[in-house]
């Protein structure tokens, strides 16, 4: 609230605001470091920048204090400190942060002295890799002489890369041991420190192999002419072969460095030396280096070498040369290559043409084109491919002409397919007539590849050709060029074709032509009509799965049932290959009623169809469980188990538990359970709870195979961050009725009984229970007589899952909190209105009592309920379909009152046999809504139960609970604010809020129940800062500000309509507000008001020690949720 636009006052006090609100930070350095460390790691870069800015402000003394907190690995946890120091170095390494970079650099050096542990000192030196400058050289230098520190110190100096740094490395060489020398020599090489050449050279004879290698590499890097002899000798000693000393490579590097330094004579000599020593077969890859170096440093001088190289008998070497040639020289080089190609043998000529294509110089077009007529097929092939690269679509006419000549049909086709689009088809297709055989086939292929259905008739005619190539191409083309208009011709061809492959091609074409024709799914379709009369029924039946439709399905099922031999098999294959889920019922029947091959194939097809069907996961699980008993062996079972792994439901996971100890099925089951329980790639859709934890732990023990180490890590990581909640708990152990009891009266009559009377009746009812209810095959069954089966425990808010099955005429239900009921009945009982389906809240009178849709499975099959009850509202999913959407369950026993707060879950009996299995319940504790596990442990409590305003006082009209949110709608006509029932003094208050455009509310703290809370207590503004009407407010009026006292930072509200998270810490006179992870206000009330408040108004409530927390509404709609508090006084 409190947007009062006193423009004048705003302007007048602006100066004052600036001088008083940015009050000096009075925290000690220790406190400031501790505060910063508490924020490590920062959640986002804005937050990080802010904390790093604070740390940088601490100066070198602060940095030293921080670094004193580093400890050797294994001796304590300094994670936050390392986060801070490393990030500070990174932060300071950015452009324009010279000042803080100097500070960090100084700090690092000072800290190095005070630490003894090598790992810690290495960590500090590593930071200098980022921020070190010439200032650090003197300090870092002394670590070079400690063998364990040489490496990190040298790395820092290499990063610093100044002349002083190089000198320091050089000076350290004398007196260093071999291990340190290797590092120092390498570093001097990297810095190319010339003065060190002489000294380094003396190590070339060292007995230490690493030092010799480093020496040669360093001398090569430096590239001084004086090193020539030494490096050449080393390479010759290595016979110019690969040796771990890298002597050969060092000389090659050296040659390049000479060129880079402008020592052209030496460079040329070196390259010539390499050529001399690398002529033999095994060393040509080193010879090849010369070619690229020549091209780099001497440009055109490389040409003779390159031209000579392609005379080599070694293809690798020729290609190495041609790869260099591809990118060097200008037009004259192109001409020289053309001349070379003209005189070269065919294989080399082809290779040069290939290079000219990649080179892309159009000068070569004519030459390349002239090679299309060469005798060598290899040359022609490379010429065609080069022409594509050189000319693009301009090459199309030439390539068509070449194709028509009939020499290179395949290569020409591949080239044309890269170039032609539909607009090129006419000139190509027009040549069909003048060609024959393979060439004609290529034209047909190309026209088909671009979907040229304008040439259907011409190509269709070729299906009658005597020439095998033409004929094949024509049949093969049909599927790409057929449309509905061609259906008659295609069906005729289908029934007249003789070759089996040709029949298949026509079938594909028929599918293309018929699939978008709706009439083909009816009795009158051309295909179904043809089916009736033809004696080649198999040819049409095997197409029908792709066409689909009920008529086709019935027809095919009928052929399967009533025929024999080949026709039956084809019908069966059609059913197993049906394009959608519709054939599943037929496949189930076949699985159930047949044996052998039919059974196992129908089984796997059924599984595949369920897997790809658009069904809810609950329904898929029921289908898989239905088929599982008919598995022909472990392979079938594994198929089902792995399919269930895609269903992210609790019952799917629980169902798989039985297979985890089965040796043959264990791995499939373990992987599936893991897939179900762990989050998807987007980090969502995971399961949690004790049962999940137990199962995942078992999975981690048994899972094996190639990638299982990764799986185990995933599982472990997930278990570590999984909420510790109980989750779903079984209500039925599958063996007996433990956890259940007989029913006594109803919730109202029971309260009227004395304790003794109730106990006695309960005992009687428990005895009677066993007469009517029993456990059979892991299910609870009812024999048609007697009372409800009642849970021993009472439940308030909960979610439950349960499977149920009824027989014909069945009528039952589930009582929630002792009250009827979520309906279960046979939808055939239309005399009582059962056609609406199961799942409805049958006894409701004011609220909906019917389900939203019929989602029942056939009588005799299992169904799955997922029910949740929060407050008085019930939501029901039946077989994965939403049938009751958050509807209040009315109190059947006392219609004048809402439903009881808690009560038994009962399985209702209504004179018909029925069964239940897999009953699981998860209790929801509304006292803990919105609390994380950490918060619970820290003593936070939830202030809003998501259902009603219990625990609050004041305006309960404009403020109300809906869908777990606290909604503010001022239009409802209430008055005043909403306050907690309890008072709070020092506290942490966390909540989420969602603004509407221009929304204005406020959070009152330490407020009394009456008066203007902004003054009689304090108000922390809640406001849509972005609304135009608020464009000209004073700083202290925007979101998060202690209204009129301390302004908050702006820019951290999420866009209007998104949820924001806020934390308010009120600790004595210090108020800290964090919005979406960013501290937007951190100030002291006493400090901020010691010279008077910035709004120049009287704030008597400012220094109140305690009061209520409340929402101070002023006419705006908005929402709150997950409201929780930790009382710091208690």
């Amino acid at each position, binding site marked *: 609230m409190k947007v009062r636009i006193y423009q004048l006052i705003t302007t007048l006090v602006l100066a004052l605001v600036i001088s008083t609100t940015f009050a000096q930070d009075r925290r000690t350095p220790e406190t400031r470091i501790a505060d910063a460390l508490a924020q490590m790691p920062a959640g986002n870069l804005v937050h990080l920048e802010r904390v790093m800015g604070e740390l940088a402000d601490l100066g070198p003394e602060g940095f030293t204090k921080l670094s004193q907190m580093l400890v050797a690995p294994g001796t304590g946890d300094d994670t936050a400190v390392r986060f801070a120091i490393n990030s500070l170095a990174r932060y300071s390494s950015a*452009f324009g942060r010279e000042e803080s970079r100097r500070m960090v650099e100084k700090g690092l050096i000072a800290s190095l002295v005070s630490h003894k542990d090598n790992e810690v000192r290495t960590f500090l030196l590593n930071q200098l890799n980022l921020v070190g400058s010439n200032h650090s050289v003197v300090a870092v230098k002394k670590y070079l002489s400690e063998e364990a520190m040489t490496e990190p110190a040298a790395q820092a100096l290499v990063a610093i890369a100044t002349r002083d740094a190089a000198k320091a490395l050089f000076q350290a060489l004398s007196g260093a041991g071999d291990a340190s020398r290797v590092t120092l020599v390498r570093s001097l090489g990297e810095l190319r420190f010339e003065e060190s050449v002489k000294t380094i050279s003396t190590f070339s004879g060292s007995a230490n192999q690493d030092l010799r290698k480093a020496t040669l590499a360093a001398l090569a890097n430096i590239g001084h002419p004086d090193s020539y002899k030494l490096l050449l000798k080393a390479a010759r000693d290595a016979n110019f072969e*690969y040796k771990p000393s890298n002597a050969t490579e060092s000389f090659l590097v050296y040659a390049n460095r000479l060129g880079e330094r402008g020592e052209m004579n030496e460079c040329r000599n070196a390259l010539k030396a390499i050529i001399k020593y690398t002529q033999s077969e095994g060393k040509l890859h080193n010879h090849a280096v010369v070619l690229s170096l020549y091209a780099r440093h001497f440009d055109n001088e490389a040409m003779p070498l390159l031209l000579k190289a392609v005379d080599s008998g070694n293809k*690798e070497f020729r290609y190495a040369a041609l790869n260099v040639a591809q990118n060097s020289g200008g037009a004259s080089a192109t001409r020289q290559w053309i001349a070379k190609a003209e005189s070269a043998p065919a294989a080399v000529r082809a290779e040069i043409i290939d290079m000219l294509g990649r080179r892309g110089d159009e000068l070569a077009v004519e030459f390349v084109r002239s090679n299309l007529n060469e005798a060598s097929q290899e040359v022609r092939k490379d010429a065609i491919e080069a022409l594509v690269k050189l000319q693009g679509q301009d090459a199309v006419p030439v390539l068509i002409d070449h194709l028509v000549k009939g020499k290179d049909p395949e290569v020409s086709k591949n080239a044309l397919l890269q170039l032609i689009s539909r607009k090129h088809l006419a000139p190509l297709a027009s040549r069909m007539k003048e060609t024959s055989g393979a060439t004609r086939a290529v034209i047909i292929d190309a026209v088909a590849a671009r979907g040229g259905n304008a040439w259907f008739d011409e190509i269709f005619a070729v299906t009658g050709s005597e020439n095998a190539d033409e004929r094949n191409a024509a049949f093969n083309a049909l599927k790409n060029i057929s449309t509905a208009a061609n259906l008659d011709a295609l069906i005729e061809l289908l029934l007249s074709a003789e070759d089996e492959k040709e029949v298949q091609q026509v079938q594909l074409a028929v599918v293309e032509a018929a699939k978008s024709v709706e009439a083909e799914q009816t009795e009158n379709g051309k295909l179904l009509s043809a089916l009736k009369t033809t004696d080649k029924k198999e040819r049409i039946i095997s197409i029908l799965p792709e066409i689909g439709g009920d008529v086709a399905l019935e027809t095919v099922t009928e052929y399967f049932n009533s025929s024999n031999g080949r026709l039956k098999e084809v019908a069966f294959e059609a059913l197993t290959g049906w394009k959608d889920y519709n054939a599943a019922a037929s496949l189930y029947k076949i699985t159930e009623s047949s044996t052998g091959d039919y059974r196992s194939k129908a089984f796997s097809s059924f599984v595949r169809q369920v897997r790809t069907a658009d069904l809810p996961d609950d329904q898929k699980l029921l289908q898989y469980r239905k088929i599982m008993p008919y598995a022909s062996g472990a392979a079938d079972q594994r198929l089902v188990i792995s399919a269930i792994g895609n269903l992210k439901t609790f019952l799917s996971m629980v169902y798989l538990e039985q297979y985890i100890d089965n040796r043959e099925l264990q791995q499939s089951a373990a992987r599936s359970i893991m897939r179900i329980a762990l989050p998807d790639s987007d980090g969502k859709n995971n399961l949690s709870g004790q049962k999940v934890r137990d199962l995942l732990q078992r999975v981690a023990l048994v899972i094996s195979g190639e990638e299982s180490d990764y799986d185990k890590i995933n599982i472990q990581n997930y278990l570590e961050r999984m909420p510790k909640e109980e989750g779903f708990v079984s209500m039925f152990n599958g063996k007996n009725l433990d956890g259940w009891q007989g029913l006594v009266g109803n919730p109202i009559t029971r309260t009227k009984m004395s304790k003794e009377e109730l106990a006695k009746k309960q005992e009687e009812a428990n005895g009677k229970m066993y007469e009517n209810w029993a456990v059979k095959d892991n299910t609870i069954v009812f024999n048609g007589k007697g009372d409800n089966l009642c849970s021993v425990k009472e439940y308030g808010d909960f979610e439950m899952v349960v499977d149920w099955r009824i027989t014909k005429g069945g009528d039952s239900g589930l009582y929630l909190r002792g009250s009827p009921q979520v309906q279960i009945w046979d939808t055939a009982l239309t005399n009582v209105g059962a056609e609406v389906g199961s799942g409805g809240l049958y006894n409701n009178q004011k609220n909906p009592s019917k389900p939203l849709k019929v989602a029942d499975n056939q009588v005799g099959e299992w169904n799955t309920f997922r029910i949740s009850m929060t407050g008085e509202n019930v939501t029901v999913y039946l077989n994965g379909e939403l049938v009751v959407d958050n509807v209040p369950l009315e109190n059947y026993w006392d219609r004048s009152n809402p439903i009881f707060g808690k009560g038994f879950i009962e399985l209702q009996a209504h004179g018909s046999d029925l069964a239940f299995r897999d009953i699981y319940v998860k209790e929801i504790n509304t006292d803990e809504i919105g609390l994380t596990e950490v918060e619970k442990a820290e003593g936070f409590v939830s202030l809003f139960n998501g259902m009603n305003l219990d625990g609050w006082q004041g305006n309960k009209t404009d403020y109300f609970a809906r869908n777990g949110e606290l909604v503010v709608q001022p239009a409802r006509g209430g008055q005043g604010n909403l306050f907690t029932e309890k008072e709070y003094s020092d506290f942490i208050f966390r909540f989420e809020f969602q603004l509407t455009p221009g929304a204005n509310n406020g959070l009152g703290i330490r407020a009394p129940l009456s008066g203007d809370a902004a003054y009689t207590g304090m108000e922390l503004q809640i406001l849509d800062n972005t609304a135009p009407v608020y464009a000209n407010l004073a700083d202290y009026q925007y979101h998060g500000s202690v209204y009129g006292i301390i302004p908050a930072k702006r820019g951290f509200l999420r866009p209007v309509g998104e949820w924001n998270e806020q934390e308010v810490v009120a600790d004595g006179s210090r108020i800290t507000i964090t919005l979406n992870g960013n501290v937007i206000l951190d100030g002291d009330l006493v400090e901020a008001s010691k010279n008077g408040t910035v709004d120049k108004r009287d704030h008597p409530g400012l220094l109140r020690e305690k009061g209520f927390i409340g929402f101070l509404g002023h006419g705006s709609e908005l929402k709150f949720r997950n409201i929780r508090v930790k009382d710091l006084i208690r």
Partner: protein
Amino acid sequence: MVHKSSTSRRGFLKSALVAGAGLTIIPRHVLGGRGFLAPSDHLTKAIIGVGGMGRGHIPYEGTRVVAVCDVDRLHLEKAKSMINHDVKTFGDFREVLQLPEVDIVHIATPPHWHGIMAVEAAKAGKDIWCEKPMTRTIGEGKKVMEAVNAHGRMFRLNTWFRFKDTFYGLGTDVKPLKKIIDSGILGWPLKVTVSGVTGYDWKFFWSGKHNLAPMPVPEHLDYDMWLGPAPYRPYNPERVHANFRGYWDYDGGGLGDMGQHYLDPVQYLLGKDDTCPVSIEVDAPQQHYDAVGSWRRITYTYADGCRVILDGENKDKDAAYIEGPHGKIYRGFRSDIPNLQDLVKTLPDPEPQITVFSESVQTRKKFALNETNGFYSSTLVNLGIVAVRLGRSLQFDPVKLKFIDDEGANRLISQPMRASWSI
């Protein structure tokens, strides 16, 4: 450092060499000269790094393993047991590179080794098959590209979506996408979004642990050699083998693991095989100096305005995979352009590529994903990693391959190697 175990490793190696002495594989190039291989001939290969990934390289068609190398004796034993002929075993890859009978070297070690090994293999005249990511720094990638080129070697980087297989959530290979983009139907510039929404999982479980306590090195592991060029840090099993991706010194988390898989085809589609973005914007939590953490968003922008967005939190709920001014393509190859699939048929095919490495080795024509385009796609990954680690957005010069006005970032282009290793 662990010198103690290296003596026993030497002993082990000796016996392994003796065991392999009876081997009579004659390399193809001795018989027929290199580059003159009949297509039916088997090329010979050595695999360096035979953990889970490297062992997967044993059965590739058209090649025969003649040597395997690992710094963990248990890995070597397991690999040997999977090969049903005699094979030489090594603990030091440099000994493998000296074998004349080896045509191709497969590098399946953690990424901090890729750069050195690829360069050394090129120096030794071997053709190279390297696991992704190509290298873990831009500087090393450049060296690999240069060495492979200079020595005339064939190089294959092992990700393949630019030329085969269904491309993650797209439900197609890249060919039709390439045809569409090249045809200009979508307009220009393009924006590509890589996120769970478009079908990609960023695998943030590759996050490292903090505050690792030093532990004794197991007898079967040569830890000093495992670290190689990486900075020395006390041993802890969390660092090595299946866990290394969670530490900056060896890889870059999910981005290192999957980045090149996801981004290489994007680079191909956008025609950026020889260039880099000019700016990299990043939104991420603060990163640890050693352990990799997650990130929320990385946005690459090229000079022509094309953008690639890595959305780590799947924030853009309606994001198209590719979006241009005139059309979009979504996950599952859906599009707002009517009949796009039919339209694809009418468009020219992209340039064919060599997609079987043994063919490259024999014809000496470059593999579809080679040292050059592979370098640029690994650079795309590494640019993101540098920005995430530094916690700031960066400007980049694609010609000089340097960051603009950012010395800190430039110091991460080539990171120091522990002596005696250098590249």
